[in-house]
């Protein structure tokens, strides 16, 4: 399976990554190789196998609706790259 340069650009955009031209080339090749490798799984007959979403044999892990203390705001904002008062500050989102 060949990953085109356009595919790489699309995936990079979704991940908000800016790639240099030679990187697009390089990652395209690597991604193609990975998919080629994973393709081996297609050899298995999974006709009668239920799709697996979990590998642990658990279901219905739930908690009661109880309010627990939140973090102090100062701790919440401690890792914020930029803050403004009690808010996280980010580059302007809409025009």
């Amino acid at each position: 399976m060949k990953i085109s340069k356009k595919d790489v650009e699309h995936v990079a955009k979704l991940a908000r990554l800016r790639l240099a031209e030679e990187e697009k080339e390089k990652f395209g090749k690597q991604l193609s190789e990975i998919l080629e490798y994973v393709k081996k799984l297609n050899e298995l007959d999974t006709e009668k196998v239920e799709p697996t979403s979990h590998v642990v044999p658990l279901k219905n892990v739930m908690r009661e609706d109880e309010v627990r203390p939140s973090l102090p705001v100062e701790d919440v904002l401690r890792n914020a790259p930029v803050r403004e008062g009690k808010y996280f500050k980010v580059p302007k989102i809409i025009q």
Partner: protein
Amino acid sequence: MNYQLVVGLEVHAELSTGSKVFCGCPTRFGGEPNSQTCPVCLGLPGVLPVLNKKVVEYAIRAALAMNCEISRHSRFDRKNYYYPDLPKNYQISQNYLPFAYNGHLNISIKGAVKRIDIDNIHLEEDAGKNLHGEDTGLAEDSLVDFNRAGVPLIEIVTRPDMHSLEEVEKFMTNLRDVLLYLGICDCRMEEGSLRFEANISMRPEGESRLGNRVEMKNLNSFKMVLKALEYEMGRQENLLREGKTVQPETMLWDEAKGMTSAMRGKEEAPDYRYFPEPDLVPLVIDPEWLKEIKESLPELPQAREMRLMKEYGIPEYDSAVLTANRPLADFYEETVRLFPNGKMVSNWVMVELLGRLKERNLKIEDSPLRPSHLAEMLTLIKDGLISGKIAKDVFTEMFTSGKGARIVVEEKGWAQISDESQMKEIVEEVIRENPKSVEDFQGGKKKAITFLVGQVMKETRGKANPQLVNKLLREKLQIKSKM
């Protein structure tokens, strides 16, 4: 050629649980920014979400009330996108196996029942809140508050079954009433706990294929939904008439300008790369639990509306008004239980009580006047102890003071005068003092008696029993004319 409107709605309803869907942070609205957050809802590394059982219970209630089939097996998926209101860069949602599907809600349009199909209802977490522009006072930045991130949501997705603004409005109203009756969402649109997105397209009348649709966001009230749809209907119809095509895109409603505008130009369609959420195990709904929830469902608004009409003999209009919210319907039924005259109670509740509440901007739950007060007052009218006219004053006094009807009547000395001998004196006095009207009456002007009755009422400050006054006046005047 005529064009037909086609609308489908996506409704987000925040569930009114105490804690968030995957962590113990409170869901309360209006807290200090970022004060209701923790490592789970902030998406810090190494944390695990744990599902709130009440969220599932509330969601099942909604699904049952909307006649859905409930999936025995469902699970959660990650919806991946980058936006600053989403701390994990994915939203936990249900894409492949929503917990409920194939439901419907009926609406009544001009006396006929119309069914609006619901494609599915799924569970998800709300995102945080971004503040821009004027709300921040900053030119180059936006601010983020994560208090809302992780608040439980159900998304109700209808099929494109609505073909008029009236149908859309009815559906929204019914849906809101159902959610309120179920007690699972407070439906405060101004706080964002109930949000609508509309998919709208137009097609030539008789055409069965759907036209290109526009998704509309930023609709913060019923009124805005309807205004935006009306605008968009016109815009799309004009394009089609000119032989142009409608671009399938997402648009925002601009309330100030009264028009829609494209949200994200020509950017590619969203690509959410859903995949199963590995941090949450599958949800398998126990039939016993389902049965328990089913049995605990309250009577829903439409059923109650029908029952009230039948049980108390009130018109459809009255019943619709009274069942619009559960506390109001409870108030009505409690009053009728104490004073079994359905129509009389509905008149007083709809006109006087609702009017008074509106004036003072109060909810029925906060009314100082209780069902027992109203029933007591109506009993006084029925027993002839007060007139309907005085009753309005009694009502006002009860509403302000919260006192009972008998006490008010006693304190104010408002009891109706039904004592014949006492009344006779007043009637005779009025006859003496108004010879002109007496002459008119006896000369054939039957209407003159109304004036005389009015005079007696004035003398007694409205406390006279009008039937009695009428009877006594006629007796006296007829005797007089024979003399």
